[in-house]
Structure formats: C-alpha cells, structure tokens
C-alpha cells in the first residue's frame, strides 16, 4: 500500500477520504448545534454523552487523526505543487477561468484551521479536555458555556466569518473529493457541484443560524 503515499493520486486519495470524513463530522456537529435552538436540556444531554466516556474519547482521537492527516497532506501537496510550478513565475497574472475557492484551498484551509484552534480553546478545552484530566472546573452542561458566549456580538461575527471561509472551502472540497476518488463523469460533474454547494450551504447555514439565534434569543 506504499502507493498511497508515493503516488500523486494516492496522496490525493488520502486528502479526499479525510476531507469526506471531516464533512461527515461537520454534518454531525451542525445537527448537534441545531438542538440548541429547540432545547437546552437536550443539548446538555448530548454534551454529557460526549464527555469523558471511552467512546467519546475514541471518537475524538479518530477525528483528530482525520484533521491531522488532512492538514499534513494539504501542506505536503501544496509544497510539492509550488515546486512543480518552477522558480520563474508568470509576469502576467493567470487569467484562466477557475473558481476562486479552487485556487485558494490552502489559504482557506489555514483560515479554517486558525478558527479551529480558537474554537477548541473556547469550548473543547473547557469542556471535554478538563473533564478527561479530572479538572473540577470542567463544564459538563454545554449550554452554560455556549449561551453566554454568543451574547457577545464580537464572538458571533468572528464565527460568522469563519463559516464563510468554511463555505468556500467546502464548495470546492466536496465535488473535488469525489472527482479524486473517480466518482465523476461528464453527466455527474454539474450535479456533484450543485450537491456540493447544497451540502456546504446546509452545514454553514446551520452553524450560522444557531449562533445568530442564540444571540437574539437570550
């Protein structure tokens, strides 16, 4: 199986599978957040499920591995691609029609990563991490942390900006992942792009709606 890391298509295969896995996680996370809109108690119940239980820890480790693989390979592929481009750059800007997001996936990824670090410091560290290490200040009931957090309009705006970056990343990422694993043809090309836009919009709109709802509802 060394071809997975040695060939260009193998490395891209790793990128696409890890990317699709992260999309599934985002769909789960977004659905979980939407519960906040309906019931704070139900949300706290989910938070308790995802505390320091063994299955939650295993899930977290798998998820972290997915993120790390995706980020490492993104960096590796980007560096290789810069080298393949050569030292001399074009003097005239490339005017080829390609979507903006497709040309800036790495930059968008860095933006999403920066947000991820911030987000984990603001929530994951105070909730699951502290619970695992046995810190008494761990917050088990998520709503106690989330609801006051989104009363601050600055937080809401930072999160909304991150969701926009995520949206652009996903609109290219979804169909591109399926193209890389070979599940595409002339007929499905347009359909996959539309489905990708829908998936990206559902994920980002779900996240954004929850944040804005919490700001106005409490």
């Amino acid at each position, binding site marked *: 199986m060394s*071809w997975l890391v*040695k*060939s*260009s*298509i*193998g*490395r*891209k*295969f790793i990128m696409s599978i890890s990317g699709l896995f992260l999309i599934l996680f985002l769909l789960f996370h977004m659905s979980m957040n939407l519960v906040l809109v309906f019931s704070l108690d139900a949300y706290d119940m989910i938070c308790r499920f995802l505390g320091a239980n063994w299955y939650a820890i295993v899930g977290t480790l798998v998820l972290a591995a997915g993120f790390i693989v995706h980020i490492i390979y993104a960096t590796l*592929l980007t560096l*290789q*691609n810069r*080298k*393949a*481009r*050569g*030292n*001399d*750059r*074009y*003097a*005239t*800007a*490339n*005017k*080829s*029609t*390609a*979507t903006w997001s*497709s*040309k800036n*996936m790495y930059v968008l990824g860095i933006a999403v990563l920066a947000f991820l670090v911030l987000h984990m410091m603001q929530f994951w560290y105070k909730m699951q991490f502290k619970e695992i290490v046995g810190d008494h200040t761990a917050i088990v009931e998520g709503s106690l942390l989330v609801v006051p957090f989104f009363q601050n309009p600055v937080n809401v705006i930072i999160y909304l900006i991150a969701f926009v970056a995520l949206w652009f990343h996903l609109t*290219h990422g979804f*169909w*591109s992942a399926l*193209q*890389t*694993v*070979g*599940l*595409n*043809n*002339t007929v499905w*090309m347009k359909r996959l792009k539309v489905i990708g836009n829908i998936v990206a919009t559902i994920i980002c709109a779900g996240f954004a709606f929850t944040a804005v709802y919490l700001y106005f509802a409490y």
Partner: protein
Amino acid sequence: MDKNINIKVKVWRQNGPKEKGHFETYTLENISQGSSFLEMLDILNEKLINEGKNPVVFDHDCREGICGMCSLYINGHPHGPDEDITTCQLHMRKFDDGDTIVVEPWRSAGFPIIKDLMVDRTAFDKIIQAGGYVSVNTGGVPDANAIPIPRDKAEAAMDAAACIGCGACVAACKNGSAMLFVSAKVSQLALLPQGRIEAARRAKSMVAKMDELGFGNCTNTGACEAECPKNISISNIARLNREFLKAKFKD
C-alpha cells in the same frame, strides 16, 4: 473590419536553460489584423535579423492547430485570449491598436526553457513511452468490424484522442500538473476494447512516470480544461483516478 495596428510586444528572452531571462519590449508598426499571431512574430524576427540582432526563438510547425508544437503564454492565457484554438490559429484581430502584448514561455518545472519562448516538452514523450500505447503482437490483421464498440464509448475515446499534447494544461495549472494530458492519453485507450487489456498497467506506469518527472498534484481547479485548445474534459481526470485506484486496489 480588419485594419493595420501599431503594437508593442513584450517578449521573454533567455539565452539558455541555465541563463537568467528577462523581458524585452519591441515596437511593431502596421501589423495587419488579418495576419496570424505567429506571422506577427515572423515579422518581428525579420526586423530583428535586418537590425543584426538575434531573432526570438519559438516553437511552431504545422500552423493549422493539429501538431501541438506551438505554445506561448500570451497575456495570461496559454495559446492566447481566444477560445479553443492553438497559438498558430490566433489572429491579430484579437488585439487592438496600441496594445502591449506580453509573450512568455510555458513555465513549469516539468518543461525547462531551452531558449527564449521554446520549452523542452520531451517529458510528455516519456510519459507516452511509459504506457500510452497498445501493444501489437504478431498475428494476422484483425477484421475492422470484428469488435463492436458502443457509440458513446467511441465518441468519448475520440474526444480524448483530440489531445495534441501541447502542454497548455500544465502551463495553465497553478500546480504544474500534467493530469489532463495523462488522463486524455489513458482515456482514449481505456475506453476501447483493444486498449482495455493493458488498461491497469498503463494507468499505473503513466502516472508513475508523470510523478517521477516532477509534475504537480492535481487539485481540480479546472484551469486546464478552460485553456485546452482541444476542449479535453476534466471528466477524463476522474476516469484516470478511477483506473489508477482500481488497478492499485486490485494488486
């Protein structure tokens, strides 16, 4: 209506593969808009030779858009600003009086510059040699209609076979990837029964050669498809990925 225009041409000059290159700007007067882009460069070269200077070196051969020899990155587009044509089919009526036209060579680590605007594209030949063929073993000539081929397959194979191997896909790609070229060459044979037999081996060895020669990793931006003079579709890249992954998982 075609008229005569005065233009400036900003051309990349580089003496050899290792030398440092630079831009030089030349002024041309009374260029007919009816002339082709390469004829304009011929006029420039004639002028340079008459002035006792070195002419600009550029690749060209058939001048009717089928040999894949001409290149040139003109005003930010491989093969110039027109759609679905090669540089030799580009006409000066695409430019206006007073324009400054920037002409650069293909820039990619896989295509080192030989001189001025001429680049070394033998990397593509090496990829073809790695497996872009159907082995013909001994025996009689098979009957032409003995193997039925569905029409849509034949059409798709012909569309892929339209690739002239000019390298515009690599030139347009921000990753210097040759995936559009390789996918067209794999697809044109993988779609036909005669090519199916060696399909797995072909996909593996052509991709291995492509990686070895230093071409980049495709990120599906689609810039190659937009610039391809022969309209090769990136759905061929999906087919190449499929063929390659299928072959590797079977091993």
